[in-house]
């Protein structure tokens, strides 16, 4: 496996995130199905579409929420998004979240599933810089997120506790061949 991919996986696991290489869409669906109990928020995304994930998930009997995220967000058990790219050094996924639905899917539910094409993992912040700059040049309004592991706090007696306001679990599924587009939105 590419060194960047192993580094990404290790870094993400170090901070309590789940990182799995999946061979195909069916494996991804199996992973999501095994970890999800309830409806799934699935905003439109190029990566998800390429992988045909939504159809597979519906066929697997998972309740898909595809509209009115504000009303449904609080009840959903999970959110599913497609990452723009990953950063190996820190185990970070970068998610263009200007679309409000992407933001809701990645903040409100307890679990957040992200599919990422491993070909889009760059080494570090330096390598991420030109991409981030380009993402800023593309449209005037930008809401961009670097996500590294689950939500955490140490505000009570400095004891690290996972899952305060954001997702308690972050699952990154590495699926080859779904997207080479760093700018997807």
């Amino acid at each position, binding site marked *: 496996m590419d060194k960047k991919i192993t580094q990404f996986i290790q870094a993400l696991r170090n901070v309590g995130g789940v990182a799995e290489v999946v061979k195909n869409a069916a494996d991804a669906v199996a992973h999501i199905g095994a970890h999800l109990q309830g409806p799934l928020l699935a905003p439109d995304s190029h990566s998800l579409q390429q992988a045909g994930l939504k159809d597979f998930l519906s066929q697997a009997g998972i309740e898909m929420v595809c509209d009115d995220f504000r009303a449904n967000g609080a009840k959903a058990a999970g959110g599913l998004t497609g990452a723009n790219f990953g950063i190996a050094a820190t185990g970070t996924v970068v998610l263009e979240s200007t679309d409000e639905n992407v933001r809701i899917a990645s903040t409100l539910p307890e679990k957040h599933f992200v599919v990422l094409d491993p070909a889009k993992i760059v080494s570090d912040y330096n390598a991420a810089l030109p991409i981030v700059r380009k993402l800023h040049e593309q449209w005037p309004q930008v809401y961009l997120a670097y996500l590294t592991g*689950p*939500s955490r706090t140490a505000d009570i007696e400095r*004891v690290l506790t996972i899952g305060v306001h954001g997702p308690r679990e972050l699952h990154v599924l590495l699926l080859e061949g779904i997207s080479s587009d760093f700018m997807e939105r």
Partner: protein
Amino acid sequence: MNKVERSRNYQHRVRQALNKPRLQEALHRFADAYTLAREKAFAGQDFEELRNGIGKMKDEVRDNIDHYLNQFIANAEHAGAKVFVAKTAAEANAYITQLALEKNVQKVVKSKSMASEEIHLNQALRDANIKALETDLGEWIIQLAGERPSHMVMPAIHMFKEEVAELFSKETGREEPAEIEHLVKVARDQLRQAYLEADMGISGANIAVSETGGLALVTNEGNARLVTTLPKIHVALVGLEKLVPRLEHAHDIINVLPKNATGQMVTSYITWIRGAVPCADEKKELHIVFLDNGRTALAKSPHCKDALRCIKCGACANVCPVYQTVGGHVFGHIYISAIGIILTAFFHGLENASELVRACIGCRACVAVCPSQIDLESIILHLREVLGEEEGIGAGKALVFKKVMRNRKLFHGLLRAASRLQKPVTRGERTIRHLPLFFSGLTEWRTLPAIADAPLRDQWATLNQVQAQAKYRVAFFAGCLNDFVYPELGHDLVQVMNHLGVEVTMPLDQNCCGVPALYSGDRETAIALAEQNVAAMLADDPDYVITTCPTCTMALQRDFLDLLGDNPVWAERARHLSEITCDVSRFVVEKLNSGTSFEKVADPAAVTYHDSCHLKRGAGVWQQPRDLLAQTGRDLVEMAHSDRCCGFGGSYSFTSQPDIAKRILNDKISDIEATGAKCVAMDCPGCMMQIRGGLEKQGKKIRAAHTIEIMAEALPQD
């Protein structure tokens, strides 16, 4: 409140804090864990290079603030944001409450923002009948408790889970068990609905990028993402110092901030926001309120302006022995610890900073970890001078400094007289265990050395100096303690130097180095003493000037330059003196290659070493004395926190904060004792006085020695 009341009030709060051993223990434990985690997080990175870069970049912005602010505003407005620059706290509060009233906002959710604490925004909103709810866990806890943050990054670090459970139980109306995981879940459940209901979200920002007109938020909990997403209006309150030119500079801060704040490699979330992003089928209203509130004035202060480099990582509190001892409510106003002292002076007025300025012990632990390369200690010293000018330094001190110290003969005459007068108290012993009446507080927790019968200067002529062909001729700057309290160190020094082929002179016109006056805020006296000492030490044109006291070393190397650098009569000589001044351990190792000069003791006793603050973090010397201990055949056993302050701090431990000093000394003694060594070595007569006095008072059979003594003992007998 007048000055006397204010001081009394402050001392009262110090004593209250000292009565909370559980808090102290928690802060000490946190400091240990933090230090380890931070080291690990920075492994393989060049911290000096990183912080040099951040410092330079921040200076560039500070010196061209109009340019970067205008560029930011143009880009942000182009993306649909509204930008307001508030000159004062009142202007910022008025803008935000006005906006809320106009838009009929009932409920506000907030994510963590120190700037909003700075301007008391919650109070302003409450006065306008608008309910503001803190959503950061720590901020929520202290909001429920009606307190203010005691740490910039971990606002509720002073509270324990039982207290949190009690607050939460009141809120939920159920009995909430004091289990941390459960309490975190309670917060999650309780606050969830609020994000959806709120009409306005208020956040801070860690970075404002001029190049893009966007903000970056560095967070862990995820509440800031909800606060900036769900409500229709987003107000970001941003200190002007948060501006950076370009995205790469933002990355530099994002790289360093979590590592230095908590020892995390990276936070869970970095959120980049620019412009009016979509919100519930409309466009969000984004208002960016830049806060000046004293920042422009700070940028113009030649001595203090570096404080604007601060990225609010909180590290200066984490490592501060005073903070660890009394906590952030006592050692802080709104902003905490070292940087808090400076920001308080500029944002909340010198009056609110004055007690804090005096509570700093000057150990430079903060300077060593600051990722923005701020010399916090120097700035705090400067504020002390300003305070001295504004409020006076106290009649007693003023008299001593101005009338006595500046007149060397009078000063030394009085010290000699004191040596005779103390006789009834010392009963001929070398230490004072009890002092009469109200002075007795000074010996309650440590014995104090007596002033020597004859100061070193009176004995100097009798010391052996036979040197056929001296390698160097060096002048010894003894400093008051070495001269009048520990003259025997001077004997040791001469023996060691002579053995190594060096001739030592002691210019008798030398006077106190001036640090006590400087640290008390009397710059004028410090300047007068600097001039006397430069003239005295250079009179014979020595090859080097050597010292046994690192505080004196820093005075000669650094402070004299600062005091006389602008004076054409003295500047050149002060610079020369600075260049040839060297502490004795470094001198022996580096200039004399002492490698095999000492005889190793046959039965190597374990010795532990205490790093004096000014030697390690001022002069940058810590390896050399360790090498010397090894050269004399000692077994060095490192103590925990070897470079943590011993609590001496000159007048700090006598008059200004003896209670804090005592507690810090006790920590040091525990660390020394835990090594099992029967001797602790150090390179500072001040530390020696403090540590020796504490060990003796507590009846510990551990010797406290200057490294020069140990060197002298290891000279070959002939």
